[in-house]
């Protein structure tokens, strides 16, 4: 069974952390992954940087630009984490935009992910319809779970379609925004979380965007299986380097 599905079966709220590969320094990738696991994180999203990250706010944009300047590429990332499964057992997901994967070759990219022990992918600009008709078979051949996003504006009909195509979890974007744009939740979010919770989807939901501390983590996981933190973690690494990752994680989990 895929590590993601196994993890989702555990009777606890899950904390997933996103970081940008190759940032702040090119060789930090594997160290960050190991430190995150040691700190008690449940799942990791390894951000493959892209020159034009449309769905991201300034924090992740800046980290991506720096990572690319540092020399990060798909090839370099795969090389840095080729032995990662000797050290790390929690689910690992690569999150990146579609064009770099397309240039690497979708089949080759998926094959490489399987060899390394990557469990899933999040590709914000690969729409569910295109995935369903063109790439699903390839992802399944290499036992990769593809994770789709939903937002407060996504229609019920489309959420049901996304649920039917998914086999892991649904990434529930907390508000209509780019990453790191808003912090905290209001009534709109609560209503949206409740609406989704009441839809009885077959896939559990993990909330992302707007989560930065214990309070927002607790709010988000009241309705969902877990929560993802991205911009707040990248900010922490920018300000404090990679040696105090456990402090950051402990503050979230409290």
């Amino acid at each position, binding site marked *: 069974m895929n590590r993601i599905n196994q993890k989702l079966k555990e009777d606890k709220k899950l904390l997933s952390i996103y970081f940008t590969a190759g940032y702040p320094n090119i060789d930090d990738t594997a160290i960050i992954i190991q430190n995150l696991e040691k700190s008690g994180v449940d799942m990791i999203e390894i951000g493959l940087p892209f020159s034009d990250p449309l769905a991201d706010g300034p924090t992740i944009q800046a980290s991506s630009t720096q990572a690319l300047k540092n020399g990060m590429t798909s090839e370099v990332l795969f090389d840095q984490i080729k032995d990662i499964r000797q050290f790390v057992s929690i689910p690992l997901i690569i999150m990146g935009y579609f064009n770099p994967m397309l*240039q690497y070759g979708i089949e080759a990219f998926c094959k490489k992910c399987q060899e390394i022990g990557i469990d899933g992918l999040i590709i*914000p*600009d690969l729409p569910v319809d*295109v995935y369903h008709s063109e790439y699903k078979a390839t992802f399944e051949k290499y036992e990769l779970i593809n994770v789709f996003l939903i937002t407060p504006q996504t229609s019920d009909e489309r959420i049901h379609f996304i649920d039917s195509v998914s086999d892991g979890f649904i990434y529930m974007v907390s508000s209509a925004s*780019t990453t790191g744009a808003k912090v905290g939740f209001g009534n709109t979010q609560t209503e949206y979380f409740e609406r989704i919770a009441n839809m009885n989807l077959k896939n559990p939901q993990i909330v992302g965007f707007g989560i930065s501390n214990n309070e927002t983590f607790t709010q988000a996981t009241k309705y969902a299986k877990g929560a993802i933190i991205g911009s707040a973690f990248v900010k922490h690494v920018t300000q404090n380097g990679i040696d105090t990752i456990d402090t950051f994680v402990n503050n979230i989990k409290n």
Partner: protein
Amino acid sequence: MKKTYNINEKGYYGEFGGAFIPEMLYPNVEELRQNYLKIMAEPSFKEEFHQLLKDYVGRPSPLYFAKRLSEKYNTKVYLKREDLNHTGAHKVNNTIGQILMAKRLGKNRIIAETGAGQHGVATATVCALMGIECIVYMGEIDIARQAPNVARMKMLGAEVRPALSGSRTLKDATNEAIRDWINNPVDTHYIIGSAIGPHPYPDMVTKFQSIISEEIKWQLKEKEGKENPDYVVACIGGGSNAAGTYYHFLDNEAVGIIAVEAAGKGVHSGESAATSALGKEGIIHGCKTLLMQTTDGQITEPYSISAGLDYPGVGPLHSHLYKSGRGEFYSATDDEAMTAGLELCQLEGIIPAIESSHALAIFEHKTFKPDDVVVISLSGRGDKDLQNYIDYFKL
């Protein structure tokens, strides 16, 4: 079924096009996709659109027989005078169409991207006309080098927001506009300025710009007794003036389609925007098309003396015309374009935009027959480029 180069029902031109967008944009783009053809077909929409094109923009734009240019190159050259439109370029055809579309979709906030500022000015103009809030994203570097257009936008009531990310030019202004739309999903319409972006944008922009070729047909009939020229020629950045110039001739293979891209300092100089020659298939700003990128799939920075052609991709229609062989693609260097621009000033008394000068440089690359009828899209006027001309020719 008759072969067609037009868009298919799934939003693709051949293998190019589609909508590769984050889920956050899906409701907006889907709303537009479901409604744009219906709205464009409404009699009241058509009436308002054509009325504004006539009374406000000043259409039809003349199809002018360029006698001295024709003599020099020993062929029959007509210039489609988009430079005489209100705001000085073809861009306004699209912004008029899209502002009417936005109103019918109930939107009360407009965003746009701009490079040289021509599309920004055309958008600010129609927003002033309709009394709608307007925010234009423009790269910080472009703001510095296009000061007169920034001032125009401000006078027209628009807010100009600098794009501070990436290379701080058109590509990044487009990214920022898309991010704004993600953050404002309900009340905002994004007026894309070129035949790029996720479906239905390339098709919608092309259809609004198709007034250019619609007029060419009846104007040529009056002058030459036939609707179809032997060639239509246009410059291509993203490709909206080209798309409009080609549109009504796409499926008539007797009409040659010629595209001129910006070669910058030379196609292989490392400072170029000749996307068809240098690009590879990929995803940029929501569509699958040819774009300039590294082997790792990172989008690279183009260069051209012309800010309007300084874009690392081309619209999906043009990728299809290139790949299928339907279009002949050339590229003109900065030097060739500037020389062709000055030549038009001196032979015809018309100062062209540097973008349009690239189309005029076709005569450096192709020889036409004496009885060929060649229609060149003169997409914009050169007032905005005066400083560039001054610097280049040391006037």
